[in-house]
Every structure is written in C-alpha cells, then in structure tokens.
C-alpha cells in the first residue's frame, strides 16, 4: 500500500447508523451519515471540511478518530491503521490525535476545576513528572491565552471564548500531532472568533500541528485552511487547494455555498444562489447525484448515475458530470 506517503489518510470511510423500531428492534434502514469518503492530509497541513448542518462532517471527524467505530473503511495515521493501533496501544494513538469540540459549554466537565480538566490525562499518561505537573499545566494554559491562576476555577466561571481556550489547552496538553477541530468557533461571538482562530494558527506553527478543521462557515475555512473539502449528504463533492477552490469553484453546491459568504460592502451587488428545498434525508438519499434535486444544472443523467470524484488538475477534484465526461 502507498498510504505511508501521507500523514493521515482516510480510505472509503462509511458510517451508517441503523434505524431501529418496534419491540424487536428490527433494523428498518440506515442513516448514511458518512458514505464512502476518502481524503488525505499532509504533515502540518490544515484541511478545511465544509458543508451544511447534517451533512455528516462532524460524524466524519469522530469516525476518523474512531470515537465512532466506522461501519467500513480505514484511517491511516502516519502509515498505520488507526483501528489496529487502538487495539494494540490505545494510549499511544489517543495521545497523538485529539479533538476540540464545537460547544464550549458542553465539552468541559462542570464538576472539575480547570486544573483537573487539563491535567487529568497528562497525569494518566505520565507525560510529565508529578512535581512539574502544576508548572506544565500553567504553561499550557498561558500558551492558550489563559492565566495560571485560572487553574482553580470551574468552567461555569468562564466565558465561551475562555472555555474554548481551556478546551484547546486540554487537547494540546497531551502534545498531539493531529487535531480535529470540530466547529471550534461556531458557538462563539464574532468578536471572539478571530482571536480563537489566530490562536489555533499560532499553536499550529509553534507545535507543528496538523488540523482537520470542520466548519460550516467558508469565511472561517478560508482563513485557516490549506486545502478545502466540501461535503454534501455524507459525500465529498469537491476538494481542492484553498486558492484554487476560492478562485475556481466547480461544483454547483460550492457555488451556492460561496455565494452565501457575506461581503462587507453594502453597495456591491452580488448574485446570490439560493438553494431550494431542504437537505434530503441521509436515510433515503436521492438516487444518482445526491445534489440533483436542488441543483440548477441537473440533467437526466444526474438522476441515474452517481458522479465519481475526478481529478481536473491542480489537485482539484470534483464529483459532477458538468466537469467530467
């Protein structure tokens, strides 16, 4: 296999959730939250994963970390299968791959002090000698823009932005190499957002991190990513290097997403593409191209065949019949 060439590689990952009903819990069908997704991330690169709510991007993030066992498919971390690493040496792999959650109010245990929250796993892994633990925690906290004296407070005494900093400190205290950022700024005020984004960028430089950055906000993704992947109903429909994506988006869904970015100039008239209808249910996705019921360019073929993700050059991949023969 050639997976050794990439820092993280995800191959044909699927995450199906069974729908069970009735006394006997018969399986009536599956919600295909993630359906046959492949991608890779190189060392110290940030891949921005965008898509609207319910498209499976959060599930994908968790499945990559194997917090949810994938229905099918594999993730390779530095050339090694995550699943086998988890069964051989769970501590090693968990320490190297961390996650930052969306909701800073839900992701911190309300009954633990910041010291315990950040220090618990450090102690468990024995990452630093007991005597130096306090200093280490203070150091990580100040790296994340918190004061050492915050250590003895509880999460509810902090604002959303501060909590997100604690959340980041908890993840980074383990000295991970790869971090899944699951909409880390979506729950925050706009004024705090840029602070947290800049913090994530700085930490990435300093600690040589690699991010999978999940967001529904293209403006945020544009700020932080090196490459962008667009997800729709459990599938990746387009992926490309950042500049290429923003200057030359190909998929009709990407067009619609990009037209939704607000422009801070009221005089500029833009054509907005309003998508009609709702996202179809991932339990019963439309046949052919999953975007076809909402697509402006939908052709007869789109309803029957599923477009493959094809290379159109410059590292740009798109799954649309408009761009492949």
């Amino acid at each position, binding site marked *: 296999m050639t997976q050794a060439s990439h820092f993280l590689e995800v191959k044909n990952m699927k995450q199906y959730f069974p729908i069970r009903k009735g006394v006997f819990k018969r399986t009536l069908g599956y919600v295909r939250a993630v359906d046959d997704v492949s991608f890779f991330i190189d060392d110290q690169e940030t891949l921005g994963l965008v898509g609207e709510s319910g498209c499976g991007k959060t599930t994908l993030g*968790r499945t990559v*970390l194997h*917090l949810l066992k994938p229905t099918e498919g594999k993730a390779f971390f530095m050339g090694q299968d995550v699943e086998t690493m988890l069964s051989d040496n*769970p*501590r090693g*792999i*968990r*320490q190297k791959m*961390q*996650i930052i*959650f*969306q*909701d800073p*109010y*839900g*992701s*911190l*245990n*309300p*009954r*633990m*002090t910041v*010291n*315990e929250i950040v220090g*618990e*796993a450090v102690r*468990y*892994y024995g990452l630093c000698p007991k005597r130096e633990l306090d200093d280490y925690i203070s150091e990580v906290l100040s790296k994340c823009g918190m004061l050492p*004296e915050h*250590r*003895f*407070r*509880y999460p*509810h*005494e902090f604002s959303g932005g501060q909590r997100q900093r604690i*959340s980041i400190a*908890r993840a980074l205290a*383990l000295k991970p190499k790869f971090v899944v950022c699951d909409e880390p700024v979506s729950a925050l005020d706009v004024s705090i957002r840029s602070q947290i984004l800049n913090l994530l960028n700085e930490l990435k430089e300093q600690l040589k991190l690699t991010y999978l950055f999940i967001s529904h906000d293209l403006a945020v993704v544009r700020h932080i990513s090196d490459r962008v992947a667009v997800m729709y109903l459990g599938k990746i429909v387009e992926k490309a290097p950042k500049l290429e994506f923003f200057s030359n988006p190909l998929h009709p869904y990407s067009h619609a997403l990009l037209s939704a970015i607000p422009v801070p100039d009221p005089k500029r008239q833009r054509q907005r593409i309003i998508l009609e209808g709702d996202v179809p249910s991932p339990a019963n996705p439309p046949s052919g191209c999953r975007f076809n019921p909402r697509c402006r360019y939908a052709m007869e073929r789109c309803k029957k065949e599923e477009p493959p993700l094809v290379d159109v050059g410059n590292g740009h991949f798109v799954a649309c019949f408009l761009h492949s023969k």
Partner: protein
Amino acid sequence: MAKKSRSSGLWYEAWLRFKRNKLALLGLFMAASVILIAIFAPLIAPYDPVEQLIWTEGRQVRLASPSVKHWMGTDIYGRDILSRIIFGARISLQIGIFATIVSLLIGVPLGAIAGYTGGWVDDLISWLINVVFAFPFLLFVLAVIAVFQSPSLRVVYIAIGLVNWVGIARVVRAQFISLRDREFVEAAKALGLPRGKIIFKHILPNALAPVIVQATLGMGSIIMTEAGLAFLGFGAQPPTPSWGLMISEGQKYLSMGKWWWAIFPGLAIMYTVLAFNFLGDGLRDALDVRLKR
C-alpha cells in the same frame, strides 16, 4: 488536594441557592432536630422508654393524661409517651437511613449499568424496574417480609430497600443516558481515559444531584412505610418504641377519649416526613439539574 482560592464549585453555589430558600432551611432545621433527638435520646428522654412506671409510681400512671410529670401522658402499661417518641426517632431514622443505603447500593449500580451500556442489558434492567414498580409498594414490602418470616428491624429495612431501589435506579439510568453522549464525556473518551475513570469521575458526579434529591424525598416515604408496617404488626415488635406501633396500640383508646397515646406519635411522624420533604424539595431547587449548558 488543590487549594481552592476564590473558586466556587457547583456544590458551593447550590448551597448559596439553598440558603435563600426559607422552606428548605426550615426542612433542614427540622430534619437536623430529629437527627439530634435520635442521637441524644438517652440524655433527653425523662424516662426509660420501655419501663412500666406502675411499679414505681403506682396504678394511677396507667393511661395518665398529659401532665407536668408526663408531658405527653402515659400508655396503658404506664410507659412515658414522650420518652417513647424520643427513642422512636431512632427507629424511624435508622430504618430511613439503612433502607436508603440499601436502595442506593442496588439502584445506583443497576441504573448506571443500564444507562451507560444500553442495548439488551438496559432492556433487562428496565424490565425489572417496571415489574417492581407495577406492584403496590406496601404489598411488595409485605411480600418480602413474608419471605424472611420473622419481622425485625433489619428485615424491614432490607425489605423496603429491595423495593425502593427502583426509584433511584430510574433516576440514575436517565442521568447516565443523558450524560453519556455529552461532549465532555466524549472528550474524556478522546483523551483515551479508561472506562472506570469516565464513569466515576466524569459521569457519576454529574448524575449525583437528582439522586440526592430522590434519596432525601425517599426518606419521608420510607419512614411512612415503616410506620404503616408497624401499624399492621409487620414491622417493629413490642415493646420497641416505634411510632407506627404506638399508633396501632393507641388507636383503640382514641374513642375512649385517651387521645394522647395515638396522636403524639402521629404528630412525630408528620413532623419527620415533612422535614425530609421540605429538605428534598429545597435540594431539588438548589441543585437544579440544568448543568449550565
């Protein structure tokens, strides 16, 4: 372990809320008074609760009405009712506390397993809970006592505990179900922490508040149940100074105008049950399960 400089845990904040609630403070005061009376019963009680005073004071102390010497009167055997009520607090609290401990010992682990694991384990435990719930409470306790055959205090609290755990288990199960999918639990999993740590450090402390409320409110109903059992003759046996037993013995004399034998233990039960209900309600308001999302 850590110095708590100017920090305020959720428990401390709950106490601040509790302090503002007058009814809750009254409940705390009442419950504390019952507990203190039970602890210091030998020092407070003017007489021995089982001593028949006819031998020392003569036949006139049989069913004597309340007087300066006997504040709550005496019963037909010439025992001082006030002293019996004071010692009766020991019986009621003992049953209340031990039955609650038994309920917690069964209910917390079963509820936790059901809620955390889910699947068929949850189905099985939930089925068991529903079966026990479906029976009338007192009838089930009577059935359990019947199995043990000889009614003693220990049998009573074990029997009550064996029935009362279902309420606790339900609360714990519901808490675990809602907490196991919370992001901070997922974060603990992502950190690679072992399951024991996740359950005992991350989930259980957050599930505790409603369990405490349930257990406190349960105290009231357990004390009532004990009194009911004693009244029916299935609980404490004479000459134990159990409040329920006293009502049972005294009620025959109510119609003769000898009200003090049955009324005073009745008031004692009311006071104690009210105490724990006020306290439980106060705790519920103070601990309020919204975990500040």
